[in-house]
């Protein structure tokens, strides 16, 4: 680095301004419009494994504010709080979905298209039916839309694509949700614990199986 401060010439100044303008555009898009494009790199064939990562560690998350709000609302509709476990929004399922659709891999890129299109469709439906964004609807209003698309086999032709989106989204949301410790507790996964001895199944399990 040159320790002396240098005076910008005109060409450099223009370049700087152009760059600043471009970043504002990206920022605005991220906040108000289309999701940012995928810019992150794959984690490669030799990532450090012995570490706990969180969403965003490997590649930037790309959902914009509106998309995030829609995802939050939809994950909570699919995985609401009940007496056994918290709602999806409380365990960060939205971050998992954001990480997934922001990933620089071919399969995830395909999912990204479907998910982003689906989120846009959901808001359009919400506007058409209730003149509000999906995230601002009541549970009853959200359900009215979801009921048309939550059973893929039963969806009418006009909701076919939306139903495919819903099925993919539900799979993704459940994948993120049940991978968490709260998800484990809910579903009854009690492993990942060191023990001295591997025991035969508990008596109540054997009994239930007629063993």
């Amino acid at each position, binding site marked *: 680095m040159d320790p002396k401060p240098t005076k910008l010439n005109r060409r450099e100044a223009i370049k700087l301004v152009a760059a600043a303008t471009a970043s504002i555009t990206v920022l605005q898009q991220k906040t108000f419009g289309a999701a940012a494009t995928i810019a992150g790199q794959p984690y490669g*064939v030799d990532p450090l494994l012995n570490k706990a990562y969180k969403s965003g560690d490997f590649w930037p998350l790309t959902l914009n504010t509106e998309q995030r709000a829609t995802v939050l609302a939809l994950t909570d509709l699919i995985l*609401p709080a009940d007496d056994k476990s918290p709602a999806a929004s409380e365990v960060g399922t939205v971050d998992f979905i954001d990480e997934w659709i922001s990933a620089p891999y071919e399969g995830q890129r395909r999912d990204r298209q479907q998910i982003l299109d689906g989120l846009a469709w959901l808001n359009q439906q919400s506007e058409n039916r209730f003149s509000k964004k999906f995230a601002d609807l009541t549970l009853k209003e959200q359900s009215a839309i979801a009921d048309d698309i939550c*059973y893929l086999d039963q969806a009418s032709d006009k909701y076919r694509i939306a139903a495919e989106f819903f099925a993919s989204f539900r799979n993704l949301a459940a994948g*993120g949700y*049940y991978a968490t410790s709260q998800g484990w507790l809910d579903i009854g996964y009690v492993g990942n614990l060191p023990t001295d001895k591997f025991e035969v*199944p508990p008596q*109540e*399990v054997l009994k239930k199986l*007629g063993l």
Partner: protein
Amino acid sequence: MPLITSSKSKPEYDVVIVGSGAAGGQTAYTLTMEGAKVLMLEAGRNYDPVTETPMFQTNAQAPLAASNTPDKNFGFHDATVGGGWRVPEEPYSVRRRNQPGWHEATDWNALTTDQNWMWWRSRMLGGRTNHWGRISLRMGPYDFKPLERDGLGLDWPLGYDDMAPYYDKVEMLIGVYGSNEGLENTPDSPNRTLLPAPAPKAHELFTKKICDDMKIPVVPIHRAVLSAKQDHRTVPGRLHPHNAKAQKIIGNHMELRQACFWATPCGRGCSTRANYQSTTVHIPPALETGNLDIIPNAMVREVLLDEGGKTTGVVYIDKLTGREHSVKARIVVLAASGCESARILLNSKSNQFPNGLGNSSGMVGRYLMDTVGASVDGQIPALENLPPHNTDGAGVHCYIPWWKYREQLAGKLDFARGYHIEFNGGREMPKPGIAENITNITGGGYGKRFKEDMRRYYGSFMNFSGRGEMIPNENSYCEIDPDRKDKWGIPALRFHFQWSDHEIKQAAHMHKTFQEIIESMGGRVTSKIQTNGRKAIYPPGAIIHEVGTTCIGSDSKKSVLNQWCQSWDVKNLFVTDGGPFVSNADKNPTLSIMALAWRSADYMLEEMRKGNL
């Protein structure tokens, strides 16, 4: 692991070994314990499972909840480094269905590929042993003499009795759990050789109950996992009689290895050394003898030959500097995996061997085999809503060995060889895709009802996978691709592959059997049952039991190696990996690779002592 760099290698070694996995590890262990000076060359990087293994990391702590990706084909936490179905710096060529010509292999999903061969590699010290399934089944007497028995394939130039003492030793060294069941062609081990079989899991017990009625045996599987600590007082003496130094070294290491604590999947590797991987079991004691040097990132190009027809060493590329080096040794051992060893031989051309070293028979590359794989999923209502309990264990505890020898011999089956069944189920650590099976049954939904469905059906799914014998055939082989080279300028392989009707029909039989078992359990099949075996069978290479390509035999004109895995043409050249196999029984090959490598290394030692090598 303590390693050396190219500049620090000694002027000459007794033995240079190419590869550090099951074959390279075992060969190096046996030789160094008896005092031979060995150099091991590994194409991948150094790797230390003690510090690198992700123990207890949860899926939520990995990107994409640890899903399979093009970078990590078996998921984020899988031990594999720098490898997978494709290694971009090291291409290979394949045929693609309905497309003429040769293509670079680019697929990373072995279940959806249209490639005619999927070649899994690993570029790390210890190779594929770091992530393998640890299933350790002995080949039986029939498996060494299949031609004699049913007129198909090839016989080994040795029999089960020749191998049995080496199976004993390998099992004691690496630590294998299991039981002796006295079943046909499914050999028992001597007393005090196996470690105790772990308790069966609920779905395994339930499967056994149903299969008992179907006259299908469900028994403890054999896996290279320490269900209890090894007996470091008595086992060393049985492994190395009359060798106090070896006993002391291996005894210490046995004491250091911990028993399994029944958590964290074996495919990640094991930092407590409770399962077998070359990097925790073979290499540390071999290094402790002071007789082993290891150079990682060393990509071997060719084996050198002198005018007298003996090999003098190998040439390798240091992948970090791109520079070429050669090392000298009295004996060269290729243990780089069947196809990689064949590639090195085919690329070692000279006036004496214009078609590749040790290839006067023209058989190098021939008889490439994988295992027949087919799989069916089912949902078992009896397993719904089970009280939560820990089913992690050490992975698979039970399996179904091939049980239809009599019917097959009586001509009642339309295919020649057997398969065993590996079945999975239980309440496994949730991962992406967990809801898919469930919504396939419920149709979908959302909200509280969906969460209740998840609780009800979680843990009620099972998968039955067949692992069957492939018979070697003339149409399955690898050869050098004249048009493709790897990053280091080394000519790449291209693959030819065809199943015979035996494998195809066997795969169809698997599907039918799995359907019968699932339905007998009161369950429903949730994947598609294929009556056409071509649609049932997994793509070639998918099971990663790559064997053949440097076949052993009793006739130097028809085989590459003699029964000691020694080249017929070049007597100080050996291949100790899966290459020598001339049959690929349904018994997963790794244990047999190690037993064969130990036997071969014993022969090398004997011949060196006699001054023949």
